[in-house]
């Protein structure tokens, strides 16, 4: 994502056109975000007509990007240059807060 050569992320068990030379095991990144009041209020108004709640969409996208970059940081620390089989999960830990987790297998490809 940032740094020197960008790490390749895929959610299949290989990187097409490349060979995996070494496995580093599981890497993960997670973040727990709470909705803030302003967004909640705007969403409450939008709730009347239904449809997309853009504020929440952005909020979750930001947190997912954060979780992914933490996973990527862990992978590059290990010396990997790709993360394969990436999965995302979301769980609500408390009212108004949700956890976003990204995990995958760090590998070295050639």
């Amino acid at each position: 994502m940032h740094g020197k050569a960008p790490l390749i992320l895929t959610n299949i068990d290989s990187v097409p056109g490349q060979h995996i030379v070494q496995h580093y095991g599981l890497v993960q990144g997670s973040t727990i975000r709470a909705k803030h009041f302003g967004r909640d209020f705007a969403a409450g108004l939008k709730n009347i007509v239904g449809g997309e709640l853009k504020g929440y969409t952005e909020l979750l996208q930001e947190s997912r990007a954060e979780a992914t970059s933490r996973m990527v940081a862990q992978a590059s620390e290990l010396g990997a240059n790709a993360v394969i089989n990436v999965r995302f999960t979301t769980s609500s830990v408390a009212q108004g807060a949700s956890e976003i987790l990204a995990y995958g297998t760090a590998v070295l490809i050639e």
Partner: protein
Amino acid sequence: MGSVELWITLGIPVILILVGRFVGASVERNHYRSIIEREAQFRARPAVSTKHLDAPCPIQSASLAVGSVVVSVDHFKRFLSGFRMIFGGEIRSYSSLIDRARREAVLRMKESQPGADAFLNTRIETSTISSTTGNEGMGTIEALAYGTAVHYDRGP
């Protein structure tokens, strides 16, 4: 005095339901129109749920593509579903909402990688977002679609 209060307590939910019935329904119609249009645009670049694809050309590069959307139900749908809970059966007003959300998420995933030729191992996940006020049950959901975007190597 008492009758004014009665009108307010009865009137507000009725207005909210009517707003949902008309505004919510027109939002849904427009959204479906845009989904069908954009799906036609992306038909040549399929999202598949398999991990391997018999590609016509060798694959040049791969990267992760993600798309998501958060939607909520309007008051009219919530009202309808209340009736459904009495008799049971499919709550059609909710299934159309979730269907819209999933298709929108897949489209956003495709739009995030405009140059990709195919999307392998596409996963769709849905999660409910709990509200701070503690109202449980269906209200706000997130649909997330992600997959591996691949570019074909078409030669020089």
